[in-house]
């Protein structure tokens, strides 16, 4: 409301005052929250790196039943082949336990699981599991241009596995056309 006789200010003055007031009331650009995008990027990269290194460097679940022996070797672990696990409780092919291991395995697995009694080295149930994998692997090897005459196996054995049991497993593998074994060990032992 204008007072009598007061002339309103011109448009230029009005706009200048409006700008001035807007700046005063709005103040500087207000930061409502911290910009954490850069930190988030960094953390996501670290997370992806950790998850990736977990899956590639060590996918062997070690526990009281399966503790790998230490070796001075520092070469990279071979990833090619069928994983055969020898724990204190059983022999596993892939995810499945095929033969139980007795508490005292210095004579190998129980005679009932062997082809010709206690002195034999061939473990029948392990052989059956291996031959099934071998057929699949033979087809894959033929298709991918690799030598189909033999397969490979990764032996993941507990450090206290008796030599007799180890030999029984290796012998059974050999009898099922597995011609190369990769014995998995932990790096970092002192010589």
């Amino acid at each position, binding site marked *: 409301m204008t007072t009598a006789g007061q002339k309103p200010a011109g448009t230029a003055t009005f706009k200048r005052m409006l700008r001035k007031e807007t700046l005063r009331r709005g103040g500087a650009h207000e930061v409502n929250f911290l910009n954490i995008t850069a930190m988030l990027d960094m953390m996501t990269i670290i997370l992806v790196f950790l998850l990736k290194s977990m899956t590639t460097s060590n996918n062997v679940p070690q526990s009281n039943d399966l503790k790998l022996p230490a070796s001075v070797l520092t070469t990279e672990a071979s990833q090619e082949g069928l994983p055969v696990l020898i724990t204190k409780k059983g022999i596993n092919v892939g995810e499945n336990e095929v033969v139980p291991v007795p508490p005292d395995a210095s004579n190998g697995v129980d005679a009932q699981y062997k082809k010709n009694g206690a002195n034999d080295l061939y473990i029948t149930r392990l052989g059956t599991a291996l031959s099934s994998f071998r057929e699949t692997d033979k087809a894959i090897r033929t298709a991918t241009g690799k030598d189909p005459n033999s397969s490979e196996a990764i032996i993941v054995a507990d450090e206290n596995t008796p030599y007799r049991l180890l030999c029984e497993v290796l012998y059974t593998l050999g009898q099922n056309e597995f011609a190369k074994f990769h014995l998995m060990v932990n790096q970092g032992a002192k*010589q």
Partner: protein
Amino acid sequence: MAEEKLSAAQRSKIRRLSAPKELAPDEEGGELNIVPFLDIVMNVLMFVLATVSVTFTATIDTFPPRAGGGGRGASQQQNTLGLTVLVVPDGFSLKARGGNVAPGCESVGEGLAVPKKNNEYDFKTLAKCAKRLKGSSPDFEDETSVTISANKEIPYKAVVGVMDALRSDPETAPDAKEKKEMFPDVQFGLVK
């Protein structure tokens, strides 16, 4: 120049126009609120770091065991060492083409070549003994295979220890990038 005075209507209009605008909830900040997501990522990261024990693995390549010991093919020739290491509860027995290696690793004779020391397997002496045998003739220079056998109750870690001891020259300089290889090709012997 005297500044023109604003009228009351103009002052009122300026107050109205210069008032900060209240943003609608969906316009606020113009950015996604990623704080809850960040919390989740942070928790997962903490969990992963706390639970993962980084252990690196390696693999030792070998072949199916052969009954009766002896290397693969090469040991059948006369001018090869044909080294066989037998792991027994009291130490290591070594056999080569010339016969059983006597204690001390100096000559051929009966007994354990490398007995246990302080009730533990003496891998260092075994490595030195293997080096001595390999160096005993220029014909053995290129021989890289060894047969390892053991008593039935010998633990796998002892066998891995033997493989480590025989793999490379124990007297390579510590700062050498690559150790000189001795017997990296391992063959397991079967004990019936």
